[in-house]
């Protein structure tokens, strides 16, 4: 194990030299469209790996594919998790091995109390763990524990409940799909700390986000465009690449970047071929 320093938070996180997750040449084609194209990615225990990219670039698709959701079975490539190709495993089996996902727009559940939902991933009922997880996302258990995780919760509250459920589970790999969207500025700090705590406690975190504040907690960042990972490196470099080269370049071509049927987009992607792909920790 080696220690990795996070520049923003000044924290040292333990990182294994072997990745917990290694995605190799992952391709997914659906309805005649390539949603994922030769995706390469690695996530290490104790690290936050941010995934940046425009809307429609394939970030959530990659998340669902890693989780094994219905309709997201890859056409080719490998998902190595803890040294094992998990493509044949169901969602439950992946979850029991410590892989979980916080949905961008979490489902609403009639009649399931928040406290029960948060504790679902625990090996046995543990009230203290549920209370601690809720407090970690600034939801007091005495007010929220018995409320239903249904549409009476606001979007932001429901997202925080989702994060609490992931945190309570102490997953080995947490995929967080835009955990910051719909979250107010005051709570954003709690969410940021929660993500760091997950990593500090040894989880690998794959964080999908658009926000600079959250991207800065990362140890490593990858940039997705039109279904491909086109850059992996430090989070500041990725953000700089994203804002100074990727977006202007694609916009100057007068095309929606995710419209891969346009030749100019294809050209743009091919021109990025020299960028390092699937790199390990920075």
């Amino acid at each position, binding site marked *: 194990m080696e220690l990795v320093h996070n520049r923003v938070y000044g924290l040292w996180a333990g990182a294994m030299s072997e990745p917990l997750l290694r995605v190799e040449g992952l391709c997914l084609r659906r309805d005649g469209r390539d949603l994922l194209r030769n995706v390469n990615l690695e996530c290490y225990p104790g690290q936050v790996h941010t995934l940046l990219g425009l809307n429609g670039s394939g970030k959530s698709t990659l998340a669902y594919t890693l*989780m094994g*959701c*219905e309709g997201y079975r890859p056409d080719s490539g490998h998902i190595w998790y803890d040294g094992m190709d998990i493509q044949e495993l*169901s*969602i*439950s089996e*992946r*979850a*029991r091995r410590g892989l*979980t*996902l916080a*949905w961008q727009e*979490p*489902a*609403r*559940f*009639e*009649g*399931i109390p928040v406290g029960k939902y948060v504790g*679902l*991933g625990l090996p046995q009922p543990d009230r203290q763990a549920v209370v601690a997880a809720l407090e970690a996302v600034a939801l007091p258990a005495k007010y929220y524990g018995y409320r*239903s995780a*249904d*549409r*009476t919760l606001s979007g932001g509250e429901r997202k925080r409940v989702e994060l609490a*459920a992931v945190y309570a*589970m102490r997953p080995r790999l947490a995929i967080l799909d835009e955990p910051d969207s719909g979250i107010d500025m005051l709570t954003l700090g709690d969410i940021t700390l929660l993500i760091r705590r997950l990593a500090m406690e040894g989880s690998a975190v794959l964080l999908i986000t658009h926000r600079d504040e959250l991207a800065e907690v990362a140890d490593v960042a990858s940039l997705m465009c039109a279904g491909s990972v086109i850059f992996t490196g430090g989070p500041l470099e990725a953000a700089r690449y994203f804002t100074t080269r990727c977006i202007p370049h694609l916009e100057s071509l007068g095309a929606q970047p995710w419209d891969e049927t346009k030749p100019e987009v294809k050209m743009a992607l091919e021109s990025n071929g020299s960028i390092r792909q699937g790199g390990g920790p920075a």
Partner: protein
Amino acid sequence: MSAAKNGAQRWHAPGRRAGRETNTSGNNAEAGEMNAMLEAYRQAGGDPEALKLPDVATLVVSGDRVLAAHAVPGISFQAEAIQDGVKARIAVEAGARIERPIHLCFGVIPAEGVQVIEAEYDIGDGSQAQFLAHCSFPNAVKVQHRMQARINVGRSAILIYTEEHYHGQGGGVEVLPRAVVNVEQGGRFTTTFSLVRGRAGRMELDYEVDADAGSTVEMTTKAYGSVEDQITVKELVRLNGPQARGLTRTRVAVRDDARSQVFTTMEGNAPGARGHMDCTEIVRGAAEARNTPIVIVRHDQAQVTHEAAIGTVNRKELESLLARGLDEDQAVDLIIRGMLRSESPLAPTLVE
């Protein structure tokens, strides 16, 4: 038949020492029947201890016999025996605010039998009352339970009526609850019917509600059918007065070879009337669910909306639970149980 009015009095069935005393000093057969009813009451989700509290109004009917009745100030019970059952009149005085829920316990303990309950509820103007009815048929092989209710909710009165059933696992129960309800101006009627414990058997719920100006009607029906159970829900709400509000929520799950049919009709007949029908039915195995909503609007300033989701469990909900490590059966069961346990977000409290 005697009656208890305007005071904490006990009502006695003919020829027997009814009321709570029966449990402790009556003959063994009566005590045994009462105990069996209390156990059935517990299985239906009730708390038998609540029936012993002096400030809680209660009515316990086993088969065609009243085992106990206890009124509190502001409530009166009247009852008489009819063939195979009991005819009861329950009145809440105008302006009375009954703080503790009124507990009703109906049931048939033997494996076979018929129980007919003809009930009239008169909720006086400006009064507030909450009824918790538990109906238990724990040993049913061939039992029919017919409930025919006429309910009047007075002006600006609030009635919350919750009915929970427990049917055992035999499936030999026919439940035929029928209610004709009138909600006067500014009144509020909230009812929840729940049959999610044990086998549903054959259930035919038929409620008809007329809502006057400014009144609110909210009806929730929850049922869980399995094996060859048959569930039929018929609900008709007429929003007759200006600004009347109506909401029906139907939550039904069927599995195996069970069948469910939901017929919901909402009429918007006056200016400002607003109605909404919300139906979710989950189907598993070879079961079948049907939903027939009817929307009738007779005024250009009225509005009635409808939403329905019929089919398997929502994939996203399912995958969210699977991602926590539950297997598919556990996840589906949790979703169904949650749906059937859910409370309406609009449910009012008595003291407002």
